């Protein structure tokens, strides 16, 4: 339970952090909340030679709610989302839900949204939410900053579009349109546990009550969080009915490719994926005053 030896650098500006990362390349890791990185180092699953601590960069801790996007800085904590003044608004209900079930309150005090995305755990919560909400990550590289859509950002288990010597600065969640609501459904063995299965759902209704946009994603359903395109297609343009919801849920079950472990069998988790998507849709719609 003792990490291998490493050097520690506390960055005082994003530029400084970036230059250290550039200098050490693949040997360096960004230290955000440390809630995933430090345990991995203690189990010696990770052995970075250098840690570049970005926790002193107050500018990266902000939540900026603009006209088109909510920008969550690289060291904004999960707990900051949980307590954001706008978190009770219906359109942010997906973020509202997830901010209460990631890990436990102690971990959320340190853990960051961007760190979670960069970590890209197959069972992480924020990755599925970012997919359903169609977020994008701002990455700083040698050529300057670029904005990477979340679908391209999540490459594989514990692998993202952040290259060697690069760092993520923020994640942008588009401000949802009117008549948008979401829901995050997670089954966990107990509080503080990673998901046995989880579903992130966000829907926007048009003036006639049909589904204009839909985001459906699963966690713990494959090598990394997965968008269920078939479910989204089954929903968009439809009036929300029990049949439509069932079609989306079935698509999710089918798309889910979980691993069997002590949390449950493949069969169980695939079944859960469908159950949770259906529940998520019903809850999101109920939040918009629609019973389906």
């Amino acid at each position, binding site marked *: 339970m*003792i990490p291998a030896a490493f050097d520690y650098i506390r960055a005082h500006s994003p530029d400084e952090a970036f230059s250290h990362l550039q200098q050490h390349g693949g040997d360096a890791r960004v230290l955000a909340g440390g809630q995933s990185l430090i345990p991995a180092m203690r189990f010696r699953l990770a052995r970075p030679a250098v840690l570049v601590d970005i926790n002193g960069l107050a500018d990266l801790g902000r939540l900026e709610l603009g006209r088109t996007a909510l920008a969550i800085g690289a060291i904004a904590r999960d707990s900051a989302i949980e307590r954001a003044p706008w978190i009770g608004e219906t359109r942010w209900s997906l973020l509202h839900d997830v901010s209460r079930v990631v890990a*436990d309150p102690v971990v959320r005090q340190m853990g960051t949204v961007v760190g979670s995305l960069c970590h890209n755990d197959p069972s992480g919560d924020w990755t599925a939410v970012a997919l359903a909400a169609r977020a994008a990550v701002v990455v700083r590289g040698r050529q300057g900053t670029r904005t990477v859509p979340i679908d391209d950002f999540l490459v594989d288990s514990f692998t993202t579009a952040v290259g060697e010597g690069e760092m993520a600065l923020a994640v942008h969640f588009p401000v949802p349109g009117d008549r948008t609501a979401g829901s995050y459904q997670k*089954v966990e*063995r*107990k*509080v*503080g546990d990673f998901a046995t299965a989880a579903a992130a759902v966000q829907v926007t209704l048009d003036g006639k009550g049909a589904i204009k946009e839909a985001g459906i994603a699963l966690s713990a359903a494959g090598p990394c969080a997965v968008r269920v395109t078939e479910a989204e297609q089954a929903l968009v343009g439809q009036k929300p009915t029990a049949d439509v919801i069932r079609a989306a849920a079935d698509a999710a079950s089918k798309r889910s490719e979980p691993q069997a472990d*002590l949390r*449950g*069998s493949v069969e*169980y988790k695939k*079944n*859960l994926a469908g*159950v*949770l998507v259906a*529940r998520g849709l019903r809850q999101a719609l109920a939040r918009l005053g629609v019973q389906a």
Partner: protein
Amino acid sequence: MAEARQVPEVAAPAVAQGNAAYAWPTHPTYMGTDVQRIDGPDKVTGRAKYSYDIQRPNMLYGRIVRSPHPRARVVAIDLTMARQAPGVKAALAVVEPNAILMFQGEEVAAVAAATEEQARDAARLVKVQYEVLPPLTSVEQAMSPDAPKVFPDGNVREGAAEETGDLAAGFKAAAHVVEQTYNTQVQTHVSLETHGCVCEWDGDKLTAWVSTQAVHGTREGFAQALKIPQANVRVITQYMGGGFGSKFAPDAQGIICANLAKQAGAPVHLMLDRKEEHLATGNRPSAYAKIRAGVSADGMLTAFDAQTWGTGGAGVGAGFPLPYIYQFPNRRRQHKDVYINAGGARAMRAPGHPQGCFITEVLMDELADLVKLDPVDFRMKNLPPDAPDARWRAYFPIAAKLFGWDKRHPTGDATPGPIKHGFGCSANRWGGGGRGSHAHCEILPDGGVIMRCGTQDIGTGTRTLVSIVTAETLGLPIDAVNTEIGDSLYPFSGGSGGSTTAASVTPAIRVTAVKALDALKAKVAPKLGVPPADLVASDGRLHARNDRAKGMTWKEACRTLGAEPIAVDGEWQPGLSASGTSGVQMAEVEVDTETGVSKVTRLVCVQDCGLIVDKLTAESQVIGGVLFGVNYALFEDRILDRNTGQMVNPNMEWYLIGGPSDVPEITAHLVDQPERGVIGLGEPPAVATAAAIANAIANATGVRLRSLPMTPDKVLAALEQQRAGGTR
């Protein structure tokens, strides 16, 4: 092959006549009230030193090399490289070449080094050559006729059949018969503090700071194993983080620690890690029961025929009481202990009872359903007659009222939606009771009071109880008493097991304190001109019974002692404690029939406590026991790999224990029966919980789970079977 270290239930008469001089006070000041732990502040501030925290000059750290294989022959052990590793001061082989290892985690060798890291590194350098042998990894495998004979006397030990009444007649009288198989899992103790100790030699004298439930028993264990006189061993346990029945002896790690310390000529600290705990420090055996049971049309139990078996691992028994509590007039039971290559069982919080309770109580509900009786009504018909230690006939109605049992719906929640609610009930019994504890009390000329007893506080509040009883008896504030426990140099007291500690220790303290007070009264009486028998101690004064003014303060009284303190010994006497207790629990659950997740929302526990010494610690025991039961019901399970026999979840990530949100709303209804004297309470509340939850899940879902733990997959499988038209 060792038998599980079972602490016997003490079979003393329920109420014994005692010496009136020592009788419990009829209008106590502290006893029966909420008294906070006297060591609470020390514990929460870290001042309390557990064995793990003991630091001695030049102390080394020990580490044990354990068998990674469930079954293997040791070919050779090479300590050369380990001895040369940095910081290493001692290295030894625990077993000889050719030894056969019978479970994963069995001790093979050990090292001691200057730091814990060095010890771990050195342990990796011990080269052990194993000849891996095929293990028995499951009960099914061990029982199959073509299984290799792994244990010298066979893999299965068949007990004698127990039979009463006329079974054939019993089944003839039955209108309905249930035929089912039930089982409970292997549960490990998961004490918050792991096993281990610090050992230090001074010549041929050993001092050991041990995480133990028995300082005296452990002293004896060290002496026997090390072949030294008991007088040369001192065992100290000031603070201890639970043992639940797994910590009565030095164990292998204690003896290894002492040997390492001897070899190194320096104190050694050897505490186990969580994996070692799961593998090698005991568990609750599994239980299986194939039962045929009959009930008459009017709801009377008629017959019970059971084949039972279970495993306590490598060579340890797996007994449990069955049928539990209810009276089947005609019954037969045939039990088999099955041995497999896994860590051996030890006593665990009410050994055998949660298993027997779960199996019987689930069966009871099945029978009640067949005769269409409410589970409580059905139980009331079939309970044994009321007795002081068996008051279920009184407790079921109390629990039903507290719980709101009348709102129970018949089996199967018919309300729409995936979330189903249900109620379940069950009953428990336990022995407990007191036995020969000794104590020593000194009253000092400056007014100080020392009460010494060689018991130990395993986390249950014993230290606080000693202070309460002493203060109560001497009429002093609780913090005026210096309670000294947890040291084998103090007067003998038995192990903290079988729920006997409070009932053993508090009478000894009472007797000793009364004796000390009598000695003080004898000194003071002439000075006050009051006969000693007319003196009473209260509110920090000694005064005449009928004239408070005729007296002096405690300090003044003690000053009359001059230079010579009062020093008296006392011991447990009958009449102040009782054995035998009964209780009833009722649970409400919420089952998500789409995810299979069950959540216990509410639990009422009615428990006989006899005379309550400290209401707060008594309630803590009940709440703790219920949580123990919730974990047993829903989460805990020692899982062995079917092929390799290795434990797949020897940690806290995969060996699941509930979290704060899994804690139901618990009502601890303590039935205060002061006339019975003190009765132990550590184990009884842990017995009935799983059964009540199982019955509540069946009431909610309409499907019955007969196997613990009741995980989501089992719930869904049962619902699926029902949907497919299978039997319940």
